[in-house]
């Protein structure tokens, strides 16, 4: 750590407030006082803050969204347009019998309708649950079942490929709304988005939700069991807005591009909610990663604040310096990254090629907003995720023998420089309020008034936080959290597989990639033909969660209760000495 801290970079914006000033001046209470109240006192609705208040206060003609299609055509949507469109969608939900607190799942790409569906759902007082459109049918079914959503909004193509065949197995799903060309939604239980929305009135009385009412449901993965549904409430908007202002330097008039997919929490909290609450203009690009296209968007849209991920930045680095230098990136003022630890080389690359260092930050699905960050007025220590967002009380707690924070007889802070578990004092506004239908797992995340993140980190002598690794077996690939259990469960459904262990293998671009070790039933031949069959099977069922690599292994390591020990698999794969295995054989 010491070597790296010596290579501190000066603040990216020397005139911006330094960290002590932020601590002194910024607060959630100040944000609360600035929120626009709904008639009736205590009510708070994210969509009202994100859309209607701007129109009420005379900013209806400001462009809220610039939706850039894969072919480059751009659709502009003003705040006034967005108010009308979200009002209409909220009316449609009423017509469909959606009540306060009911859940709606969206399975859409980065497209105009995603914003309308999210914010219209919130206006109706219902709960918005986005799913990553690259999921295969199995992860989609699992999440639809767990959410008990009554409405799904998706495209005709995604519906046909991933949902239609299992529709009869989804008893709670009453309506499927299909976005896309008219006429696509023909069939029982299918509704065409455009036609259904167009006939609704453009005015709507926003639901008087309480700050503690559920608003967003994000599924996330753990080491064991199926995905957990983290529930966030309308009050989350307080922390989302303050963190956007401080960590993303986002203000009215900014042109903001968050490259995360709305199927993951970053794409919702910072792709949809926070920038609109701030009153910025959001750029949304529907296409896939392509370096030339990304630089063109930054230049042509005159993006001022850019929030992206380490994997994308590392891919851009491979293209060298000519490409960015042939684009006019002079509008850019602040660049931030989240998803996995950002290596110092990327921070330096930003400073050299973009003229701006990359500001790393850290948070999780459960935290609802950025918790630890670098700021434009604070020196950067490349490789560090920065310091807590003002208001957030973060600590690194000493570890027990199980490799997690030691909680018996109260928690203890780890010494400076020592690895411990990163923890947050419970009670910040965007803290998740439960795991849907799993209060027990929720409670297990807390000890002594602290939320235990499952991430290992260390503090340096000045309070900068340095990421070390995960305390559990969850895999982080290209910024996506993947639960090994979910992948193993699908592999076990293959008739030739009797056992599977799934781990993340280090990868220079994606951080980690998913590798599966499988034992096949006796009499079955572990050959290339079967390997390909397993690859095809898992891609078909899991989509983007499927392993990139499948290895046959007749002797998977087990613990005394017969469970496959992923940590031993990983130690073997990485060639760690036998002596290290004991420390890796931690049991939850």
């Amino acid at each position: 750590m010491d070597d790296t801290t010596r290579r501190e970079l000066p603040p990216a914006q020397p005139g911006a407030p330094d960290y002590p000033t932020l601590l002194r001046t910024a607060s959630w209470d100040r944000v609360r006082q600035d929120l626009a109240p709904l008639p009736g006192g205590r009510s708070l609705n994210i969509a009202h803050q994100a859309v209607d208040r701007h129109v009420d206060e005379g900013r209806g003609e400001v462009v809220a969204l610039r939706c850039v299609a894969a072919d480059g055509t751009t659709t502009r949507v003003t705040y006034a347009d967005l108010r009308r469109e979200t009002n209409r969608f909220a009316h449609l939900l009423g017509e469909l019998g959606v009540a306060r607190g009911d859940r709606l799942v969206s399975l859409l790409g980065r497209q105009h309708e995603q914003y309308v569906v999210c914010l219209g759902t919130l206006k109706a007082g219902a709960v918005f649950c986005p799913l990553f459109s690259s999921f295969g049918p199995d992860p989609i079914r699992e999440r639809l079942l767990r959410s008990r959503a009554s409405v799904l909004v998706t495209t005709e193509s995604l519906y046909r490929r991933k949902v239609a065949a299992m529709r009869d197995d989804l008893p709670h799903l009453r309506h499927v709304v299909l976005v896309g060309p008219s006429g696509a939604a023909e069939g029982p239980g299918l509704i065409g988005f455009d036609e259904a929305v167009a006939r609704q009135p453009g005015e709507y009385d926003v639901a008087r939700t309480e700050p503690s009412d559920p608003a967003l449901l994000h599924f996330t993965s753990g080491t064991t069991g199926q995905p957990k549904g983290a529930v966030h409430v309308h009050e989350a908007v307080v922390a989302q807005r303050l963190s956007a202002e401080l960590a993303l330097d986002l203000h009215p008039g900014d042109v903001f591009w968050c490259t995360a997919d709305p199927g993951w929490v970053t794409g919702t909290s910072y792709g949809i909610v926070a920038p609109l609450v701030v009153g910025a203009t959001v750029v949304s690009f529907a296409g896939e990663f392509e370096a030339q296209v990304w630089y063109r968007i930054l230049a042509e849209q005159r993006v001022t604040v850019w929030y992206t991920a380490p994997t994308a930045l590392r891919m851009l680095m491979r293209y060298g310096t000519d490409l960015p230098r042939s684009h006019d990136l002079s509008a850019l003022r602040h660049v931030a990254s989240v998803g996995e630890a950002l290596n110092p080389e990327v921070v330096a690359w930003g400073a050299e090629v973009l003229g701006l260092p990359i500001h790393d930050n850290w948070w999780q699905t459960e935290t609802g907003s950025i918790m630890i960050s670098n700021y434009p007025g604070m020196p950067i220590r490349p490789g560090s995720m920065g310091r807590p967002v003002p208001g957030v009380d973060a600590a690194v707690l000493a570890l027990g023998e199980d490799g997690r924070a030691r909680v018996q007889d109260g928690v203890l802070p780890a010494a400076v420089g020592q690895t411990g578990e990163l923890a947050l004092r419970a009670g910040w506004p965007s803290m998740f309020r439960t795991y849907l239908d799993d209060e027990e797992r929720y409670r297990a995340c807390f000890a002594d008034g602290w939320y235990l993140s499952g991430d290992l980190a260390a503090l340096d002598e000045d309070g900068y936080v340095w990421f070390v690794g995960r305390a559990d077996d969850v895999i982080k690939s290209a910024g996506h959290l993947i639960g090994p259990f979910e992948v193993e469960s699908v592999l076990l459904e293959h008739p030739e597989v009797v056992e599977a262990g799934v781990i993340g293998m280090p990868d220079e671009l994606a951080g980690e990639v998913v590798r599966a070790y499988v034992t096949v039933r006796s009499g079955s031949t572990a050959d290339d033909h079967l390997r390909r069959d397993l690859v095809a099977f898992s891609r078909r069922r899991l989509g983007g969660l499927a392993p990139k690599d499948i290895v046959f292994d007749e002797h998977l390591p087990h613990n005394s209760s017969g469970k496959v020990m992923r940590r031993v698999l990983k130690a073997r794969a990485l060639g760690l000495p036998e002596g290290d295995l004991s420390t890796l054989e931690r049991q939850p």
Partner: protein
Amino acid sequence: MTPQDARRTVADALIEIVPDADVDAFPASAPLREELELDSLDFLTFVELLSSRARVRIDEMDYPRLATLDSSVAFLVEQTA
């Protein structure tokens, strides 16, 4: 490389990544990444397979030329000429 050889090389590389892809029935001008749901890592694997099997150097700036089956074939034919 003949167009036939190039087509076989491209098809084999895709099948390596998506083994049940019906490459013969595949629309030759459709965007590969969308049609086969290739993520960024899959696409890089595709690039590496083409590069090693056709023994051509593929620079990052060439990636847009690998957008469809047809354009990938044309690229390989041109690079191996």
